[in-house]
């Protein structure tokens, strides 16, 4: 077995989803090679070489890889595929955007969002917003797979000593052009890797009220998340959305405030270790998954909680 992991990075650092993906690769077995495709991403390539479990790093450096444009990355990855039994990427927007194209180019089926490795050809994945788990076997020569990061521990960022080899770029496909990104900056931990997540829903009533959750988040070193309804209403930006079609999180503690608990929301948080729900409606489905439920008006409970956290 030989595994190629497509790294998600910001040119300086390897991002957390890649660490979880490497663990999945190690579980499948065989040698793990990491591909760092970027522009001026030497630091990221060096960081990849230090990750425990990584045997080799390929570094492709060209302007066309600066912004993760799928049409440029797909041929690069597909060209390498012949040497590998498995190609893995995290099931993040980065990985989801590029990996299906690789599968199509290789004419193989892709398996999305796996949560368990049963054997090198058999994997478990959620379907129907996690209401069912499918065990899927692939007979494809190259198995192209995205990894649900919350289902695999992160690999250690140190302990490895892989070699970094430069590989040739495959050129600019001149298809879509990156213009700019609008990133919201925050000093809080990243939603998918935070140990504690405090999420607000439609019950928050407006964006300004999220400041109450942010205060609590800062005391707990937590990330802030949201339901789709809260994002749709414009209370918070899209990257806060937790759920079937947003981000999947599994922190030690998830606090759902003014969220009813629709299946699409539960799909993104029900694997959290401890779930707290604060909702004024005792019938809200969120209470069915909550370890600790508090039936209360959030506008009373949240300031009180804030006070009691010291």
């Amino acid at each position, binding site marked *: 077995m030989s595994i190629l992991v497509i790294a998600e990075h910001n040119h300086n650092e390897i991002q957390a989803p890649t660490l979880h993906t490497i663990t999945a690769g190690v579980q499948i077995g065989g040698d793990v090679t990491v591909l760092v495709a970027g522009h001026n991403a030497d630091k990221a390539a060096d960081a990849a070489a230090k990750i425990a479990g990584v045997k080799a790093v390929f570094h492709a450096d060209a302007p066309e890889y600066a912004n993760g444009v799928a049409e440029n990355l797909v041929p690069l990855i597909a060209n390498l595929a012949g040497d590998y039994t498995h190609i893995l990427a995290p099931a993040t927007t980065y990985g989801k955007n590029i990996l299906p194209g690789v599968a199509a180019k290789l004419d193989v089926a892709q398996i999305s969002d796996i949560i368990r490795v049963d054997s090198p050809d058999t994997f478990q994945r959620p379907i129907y917003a*996690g209401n069912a788990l499918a065990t899927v076997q692939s007979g494809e020569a190259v198995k192209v797979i995205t990894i649900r990061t919350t289902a695999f521990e992160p690999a250690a960022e140190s302990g490895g000593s892989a070699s970094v080899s430069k590989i040739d770029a495959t050129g600019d496909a001149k298809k879509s052009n*990156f213009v700019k990104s609008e990133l919201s900056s925050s000093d809080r931990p990243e939603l998918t890797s935070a140990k504690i997540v405090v999420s607000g829903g439609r019950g928050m009533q407006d964006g300004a009220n999220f400041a109450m959750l942010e205060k609590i988040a800062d005391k707990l070193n937590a990330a802030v998340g949201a339901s789709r309804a809260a994002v749709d209403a414009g209370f918070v930006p899209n990257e806060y959305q937790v759920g079937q079609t947003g981000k999947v999180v599994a922190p030690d503690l998830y606090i759902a405030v003014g969220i009813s608990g629709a299946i699409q929301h539960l799909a993104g948080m029900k694997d959290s270790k401890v779930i707290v729900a604060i909702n004024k409606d005792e019938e809200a489905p969120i209470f069915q*998954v909550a370890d600790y*439920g508090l039936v209360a008006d959030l506008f009373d409970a949240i300031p009180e909680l804030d006070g009691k956290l010291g």
Partner: protein
Amino acid sequence: MKILVAVKRVIDYNVKVRVKPDQSGVELANVKMAMNPFDEIAVEQAIRFKESGAADEVIALSIGAPQAQETIRTALAMGADRGIHVEASHDTEPLAIAKIIKAVVEKESPGLILMGKQAIDDDSNQTGQMLATLLDYPQATFASGVEIAGDKLNIIREVDSGLEHITCPMPAVVTVDLRLNEPRYASLPNIMKAKKKPIDALSLDELGVDAGQRLKTLKVEEPPAREAGIIVDSVDTLVDKLKNEAKVI
């Protein structure tokens, strides 16, 4: 310009799905079906382009059982002009779906292909990306903004870190995200009118696509249930439980 919209018939998003006792799949018999919600957004966008004059024909394509024609009718009632139905197994995998759509694109030459980012049954999030690669077209996934500017598209994409703006020439494949628009409901007169709109049937043979399964589903099971929790009577108890029982703060 023609716009091709790919619409999938799936279990309605409000239905609580049940796994079959023999673990072969989920129960589909007598379950309410509907258009994949992302595909409704794609249809809405296509119709808006037609209304604004940027497009002159909207074609709705669905692949699946004969009942997939109902889903096409829904698109026609929303305002699509005609439909194409390709009969295939409900379990046709994204790669085969992409090959079928490619074959239809080659017949119809649309300037824009709009699809959902994800089907809420298989949750694959693959088909659009595969189609773009097979066609060697630009791809714009997870779009929450799509604008036609001459022969180019200006797209806003929802990504994990925020938003991304890209441009690409047409023809192109765009997969849409939740916040692109709010799909309209079909009015009764439009539902009536839709009954007269044509739906062409194409077969896998005619299209020359092998839609055989590549993956084997060995088992479909229910996820482990969470243990029942408790209702606490006050914020004080909650804080105490989190500190001393769960030990998470």
